[in-house]
């Protein structure tokens, strides 16, 4: 009986394995040959691309900026996502459905369109600046397009829909009865948050935060458009190295560094999942 199900597994597994291993192998191997520019590579196996990456301050700067904007975006996304997730999980009302519909639409609409809207809002002569100027709150127009703040806002839009779904699955692991029990025993609402809800949610937040951080590290579209060529993150740098400089093996080595960082973060979150009970429920 069980063998029949195992047979189902084999063809899809082989196809996926070929695609995963094949594609990854080709580019990783490519990264170990010296880049001679214009798509040509040397014939000898060498670590020179990696040596260049880790000794060039420009690349290291890009690496650091990627980590910085991803960390900031993760923090703010969790901050904005939590109340929505909490309301959807706890209140079975019209409002909760409306919030959910908004989240789903925002997840579905391609990030390019959202970035387009952000550019309209935040550009120097966009609505935010004109409104603030008219109200006299600022004395000159500020633009976040082409700054790290802009990239952070873009990354937040990229991840917030997902973060709400993720936080939702954390919040529903805390049964409402625990909240009632604490209140019956005389805890104030604030104390319920402080001593019941938040401690039980924190492990899930940590794991979810790592997943979102991972998404941000690999996010290309929003970082490219809102960075406007002035803020570079690793994904943007990879695309530029391929499309503008046609240096495939350099790009491959940057991509491999990015891949390894992301895998390391995944391993950390896996270990975290093993440690925390409520974090495990996020995945199950």
């Amino acid at each position, binding site marked *: 009986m*069980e063998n*029949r*199900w195992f047979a189902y*597994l*084999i063809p*899809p*597994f082989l*196809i996926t394995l070929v*695609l*995963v291993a094949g*594609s990854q192998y080709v580019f990783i191997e*490519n990264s170990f040959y010296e880049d001679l520019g214009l798509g040509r590579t040397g014939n000898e196996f060498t670590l020179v691309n990696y040596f260049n990456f880790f000794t060039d301050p420009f690349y290291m700067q890009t690496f650091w900026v990627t980590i910085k904007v991803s960390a900031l975006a993760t923090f703010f996304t969790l901050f*904005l996502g939590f*109340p*929505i997730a909490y*309301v*959807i999980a706890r209140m079975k009302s019209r409002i909760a459905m409306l919030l*959910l*519909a*908004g989240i789903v639409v*925002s*997840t*579905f*609409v*391609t*990030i*390019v*369109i959202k970035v*387009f*809207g952000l*550019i*309209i*809002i935040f550009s120097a002569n*966009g*609505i935010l600046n004109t409104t603030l100027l008219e109200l006299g709150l600022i004395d000159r127009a500020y633009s976040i397009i082409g700054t790290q703040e802009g990239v952070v806002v873009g990354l937040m*839009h990229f991840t*917030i*829909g*997902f973060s*709400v*779904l993720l936080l939702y*699955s954390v919040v529903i692991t805390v049964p409402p009865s625990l*909240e009632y029990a604490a209140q019956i025993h005389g805890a104030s*609402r604030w104390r319920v948050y402080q001593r019941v809800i938040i401690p039980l949610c924190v492990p899930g937040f940590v794991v979810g935060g790592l997943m979102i951080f991972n*998404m941000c590290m*690999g996010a*290309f*579209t929003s970082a*490219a458009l809102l960075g406007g060529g002035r803020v570079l993150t690793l*994904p943007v740098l*990879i*695309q530029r190295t*391929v499309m503008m400089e046609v240096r495939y093996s350099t790009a*491959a080595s940057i*991509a491999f560094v*990015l*891949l390894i960082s*992301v895998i390391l973060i*995944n391993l950390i979150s896996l270990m975290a999942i093993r440690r925390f009970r409520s974090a495990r429920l996020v995945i*199950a």
Partner: protein
Amino acid sequence: MQSRIEKFILFLWCGFSFVFLLSPMVVVMGASLHGGEFSAAIKFPPTDPSFQWYTKIPWQQFEAFGLSFLVATVATFLAALIAIPAALGLVRSNFKLKFLVSSVFRAPLQIPAIVSGIAFLQLYYLLFDNSNIMLAGTIPGMLIGHMFIATPFMFGTIVAVLQRFDRRLEEASYSLGAGKWRTLRRVTLPAIMPGIYSGGLYAFMVSFSDVPMSIFLTAPGFVTYPVELFYALENDFDPSILASSSLVIVFCLIMLLVVQKVVGLETLLRSGGGSAR
């Protein structure tokens, strides 16, 4: 059991998040209605509203939309062909390295899309060198790439549904005389359908809105809609892209209504659309 102050704080906090979340789409749709002459500044709120830009959408953008739609539909179908048997096989068989097999199916999600993009481009070049088959810039090449990034979404949601599936339903079916195939077709598949629908929806949307993978696999005259829009934003801005973006947002709203009618929005939450990622 929530106090009034707490409700108020939650309300404000949610409101702020929501304005942040939805304002870009509202602004794009609003600005597309601008009726005056095109100037460098996009007008929002629109003055003198009209649909003039909707009549000026270049044919190229409709073609790009058509290509995106075609690729997303077929890639979702292909992803289902891989994910359904994979999820059934994985959840129901018992062997030691199950964890590893599962992570191979989920791997495309962990790999940043831009890395997959460059990896597939180089894989296609290698294939071209060895066999003269060029996949980069063709529909099959695009489909393989999109199937690759879409599969984990279907796999994740179907696994989540299967793990809660009551096997006794199948035993009942067997004992009532149904064969293996009949049971699969009449009992198992209908039961996991919500998972297939919501996973399929995620797969479709991921493929439909993808930039980092597609940008490497497009060719001149062969561009998906998000990539077309990406280049338009990077280089030559034209207000007609406001109009076509608004049409895409409307398309997504229609998808949302379809989901609500067919499976209900809560299914997206319960089937673990989030945890699939």
